[in-house]
């Protein structure tokens, strides 16, 4: 079945340094939707950004990601980390026209320190 892999369980950074959180996926469907959700402490996950277009950069709130179907990747990046970016980040996949089953990765906790 479909799966999403986030290799880092915890990423610790100093404020101002660049952020990169990895996400790779497996699916049999040719047009999946990929998502990044963010969950701050004591809150529910909410959408950060999404894409279904190959090789097109998607941006929101200073974060960006590009879906690369050739490498099945959708890495999340930001040029300069802020303290308020500390949160749990989930990469997720929807099969697109293949159905409605949305699968999440195991999550990456980002801790930004002064």
């Amino acid at each position, binding site marked *: *079945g479909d799966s999403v892999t*986030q290799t880092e*369980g915890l990423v610790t950074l100093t404020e101002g340094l660049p952020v990169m959180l990895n996400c790779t996926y497996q699916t049999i469907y040719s047009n999946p*939707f990929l*998502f990044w*959700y963010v969950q701050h402490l004591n809150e*529910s*996950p*909410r*959408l950060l950004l*999404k894409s279904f277009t190959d090789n097109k950069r998607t941006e929101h709130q200073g974060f960006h990601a590009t879906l690369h179907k050739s490498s099945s990747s959708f890495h999340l990046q930001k040029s300069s980390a802020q303290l308020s970016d500390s949160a749990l980040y*989930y990469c*997720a996949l*929807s*099969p*697109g026209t293949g159905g*409605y*089953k*949305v*699968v*999440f*990765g*195991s*999550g990456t906790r980002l801790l930004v320190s002064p």
Partner: protein
Amino acid sequence: GGIITQTPKFLIGQEGQKLTLKCQQNFNHDTMYWYRQDSGKGLRLIYYSITENDLQKGDLSEGYDASREKKSSFSLTVTSAQKNEMAVFLCASSIGQGTLYFGEGSRLIVV
């Protein structure tokens, strides 16, 4: 805007007991989901439903039942609560394959 309401916020039960979590949404979304959140394991899909009276099993459906009797509500039953399944259960809804909107979560505590 809309809201997803999960009840109860905390559900305490005894081992072996049948326990039910409820979820209501007023987005008028067709698709609803139940996920279990465990630290380090991410969000694992238990059940989802693409319309009223439809049920689809996720990867973690064993030990759970679900019910979607109305478009706006989706309930999840733990058929026999075990101490190793204490976790946060998250309900979500979406239009088609779009963005998921999550409720605040229900924490299951098994004593």
